[in-house]
């Protein structure tokens, strides 16, 4: 509200300020550096600035971390029309027509950041989406039917103002065809097939193999990976096959998934002491090595009201993770097992989940004095990475009920005297305190056209997305946070 009022009062002045940013002004900060360890600040504006969308600011090497000027802008519309070849155009007397409207999804994402949006096309193939002005967007257009049309991807698109992309013509592409078989001969029906662009990692829409295992997809010339996997209820290992699509040439790819003879794997999940069956426990089976395939497979199921589960799995070495609901007093557990060839059943017997343990400790400063008001987040390593949170009291003390496994702790201090501090702690064997580190200060101001952006959430991350700090800008858009060295 305050920002709106200020914008209303000083709108002209702020526009001037925006113009003063000059030709070297780059919305969104630096360009993405995939080689170096680049600092990224994600900004998720709140209700004080409803005209701003979530976006990222990439810090340039040499930027003064003690005086960052982050100017973010309201999103601008990007529109256009998606067309392509249709073998059966509506209302045509002669089959086959170019530039017919395409049903599909158009997306623009700034790679390595949180900025971007997607929109489906309408009946005329038209689309409109809103993205924050920035450099380095990836534009993609994926037709709903990947059997008849290729997808389109373009990297390093810049958006600085309202943009009409005009007509994006998917054309016709080249066919990629083949057959999915098991045991060398039998066609596999209903396998999921996706074409993945090697350069961008973009996936085309899902195609299902027919009753004889045949499939066809279409792609523009380039390097791709064809990923074959199962759909819900089908134990088909994921197999990736690299391929090259050439201009006006078909590419044949046949995929052998091995034997699909499964074994029934069952058991019952209890609490500690095997006294109470546990319902709604999520069980995730991940293949370590399948007996007859180089592929991988992940299958999930849940226990019923009696704690019982039963799932069909392929022969091989497996890891099973048993994950109770978040609110349960129990902790997750894991086990490995092997299904031999020609084995039809495997009883995993009774699985006992351990209880969460009470862990208490202190947050202290480097001199050993307690630090109060610290937000403590303990994240499980693996499983579903559940996070348990609390805050330290006036003695710097905190207590959490945690799984009896090593946990990744993140301690967020209330002020800027200390950095957001990370520690790896085993709640069973580790006894002691967590020393808050001093770290390095990052401060500055978030503005939009020169006006401070109040009460926006900031997340400081590295190139891999690892979270270093979380904070909130103040009423004038200023922020100050300390992070450990990155």
């Amino acid at each position, binding site marked *: 509200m305050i920002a709106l009022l200020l914008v209303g009062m000083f709108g002209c002045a702020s526009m001037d300020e925006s113009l003063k940013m000059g030709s070297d002004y780059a919305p969104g900060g630096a360009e993405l550096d995939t080689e170096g360890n680049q600092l990224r600040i*994600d900004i*998720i504006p*709140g*209700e004080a600035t409803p005209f701003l969308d*979530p976006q990222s600011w990439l810090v340039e090497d040499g930027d003064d971390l003690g005086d960052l000027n982050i100017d973010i802008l309201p999103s601008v519309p990007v529109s256009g029309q998606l067309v392509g070849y249709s073998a059966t155009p509506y209302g045509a007397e002669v089959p086959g027509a170019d530039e017919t409207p395409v049903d599909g*999804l158009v997306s623009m*994402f700034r790679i390595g950041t*949180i*900025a*971007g*949006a*997607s*929109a*489906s096309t309408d009946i005329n193939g038209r689309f409109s989406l809103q993205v924050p002005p920035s450099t380095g967007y990836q534009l993609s257009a*994926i037709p*709903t039917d990947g059997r008849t049309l290729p997808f389109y991807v373009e990297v390093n698109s810049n958006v600085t103002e309202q943009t009409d992309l005009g007509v994006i013509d998917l054309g016709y592409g080249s066919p990629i065809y083949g057959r999915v078989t098991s045991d060398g001969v039998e066609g596999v029906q209903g396998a999921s097939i996706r074409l993945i662009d090697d350069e961008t990692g973009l996936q085309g*829409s899902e195609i299902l193999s027919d009753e004889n295992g045949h499939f066809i997809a279409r792609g523009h010339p380039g390097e791709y990976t064809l990923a074959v996997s199962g759909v819900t209820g089908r134990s088909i290992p994921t197999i990736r096959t690299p391929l090259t699509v050439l201009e006006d040439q078909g590419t044949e790819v046949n995929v052998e998934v091995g034997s699909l003879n499964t074994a029934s794997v069952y058991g019952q999940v209890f609490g500690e002491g095997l006294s109470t069956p546990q319902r709604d426990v999520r069980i995730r089976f991940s293949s370590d090595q399948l007996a007859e395939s180089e592929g991988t497979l992940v299958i999930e199921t849940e226990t019923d009201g009696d704690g019982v589960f039963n799932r069909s799995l392929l022969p091989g070495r497996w890891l099973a993770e048993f994950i109770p*609901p*978040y*609110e349960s007093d129990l902790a997750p557990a894991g086990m490995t097992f092997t299904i031999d060839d020609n084995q039809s059943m495997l009883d995993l017997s009774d699985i006992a989940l351990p209880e969460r343990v009470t862990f*208490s400790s*202190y947050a*202290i400063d480097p001199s*050993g004095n307690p630090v*109060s*008001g610290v*937000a403590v*987040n303990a*994240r499980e390593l693996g499983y*579903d*990475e*559940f*996070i348990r*949170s*609390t*805050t330290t*009291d*006036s*003695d710097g003390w905190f207590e959490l009920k945690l799984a009896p496994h090593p946990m990744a702790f*993140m301690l*967020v*201090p*209330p*002020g800027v005297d200390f950095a957001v*501090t*990370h*520690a*790896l702690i085993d709640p069973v064997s580790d*006894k*002691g*305190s*967590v*020393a*808050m*580190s001093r770290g390095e200060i990052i401060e500055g101001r978030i503005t939009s056209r020169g006006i401070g952006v109040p*009460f926006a*959430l900031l*997340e400081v991350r590295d190139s891999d997305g690892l979270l270093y700090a*979380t904070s*909130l800008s103040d009423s004038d858009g200023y922020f100050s946070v300390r992070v450990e060295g990155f």
Partner: protein
Amino acid sequence: MSHFRPNHRNTRHPKLFNFKGLGLWHAACIFLFLKGCYFWLPIEEDHPNAPPVIEYSSPEPENIFRIDTPAGSVAWVSVFDPDQGDVMEYMWTINGLGPQGTAQAFMSGNYQGSSIQLPLDPLYNGRVLTCTVFDPSGASDRRSWTIEVEEGS
């Protein structure tokens, strides 16, 4: 890791007073005895609990929580509680899916809050995400948003 200090403090309260074996209560009793007052009821001031208030959030109240990027989307709330020192508890739930386990707390000046990142998953489409914040006395505030997942993203 290096920030964990083993065996530093293993008691609940740090020792604040020590004089040749006398504790704080010993000293207080001796003082009261000498002053001729054997028993004195502690003075209790009446501080009614003030409930926590969600002041800011993203998305805005009653708005749509849209998930349409490969990285998913972040929702957050910031809370102001007039009772200094109150420890907040946050519960993020999605109708039909129950409590969510990936939210994390943050502190910033006079504000504390919690954020959650939900992945791009059609499972969430049309459901309602709710964040409820409780103070130690059980007083609470909450906000809800309908989730919209861009299918095919």
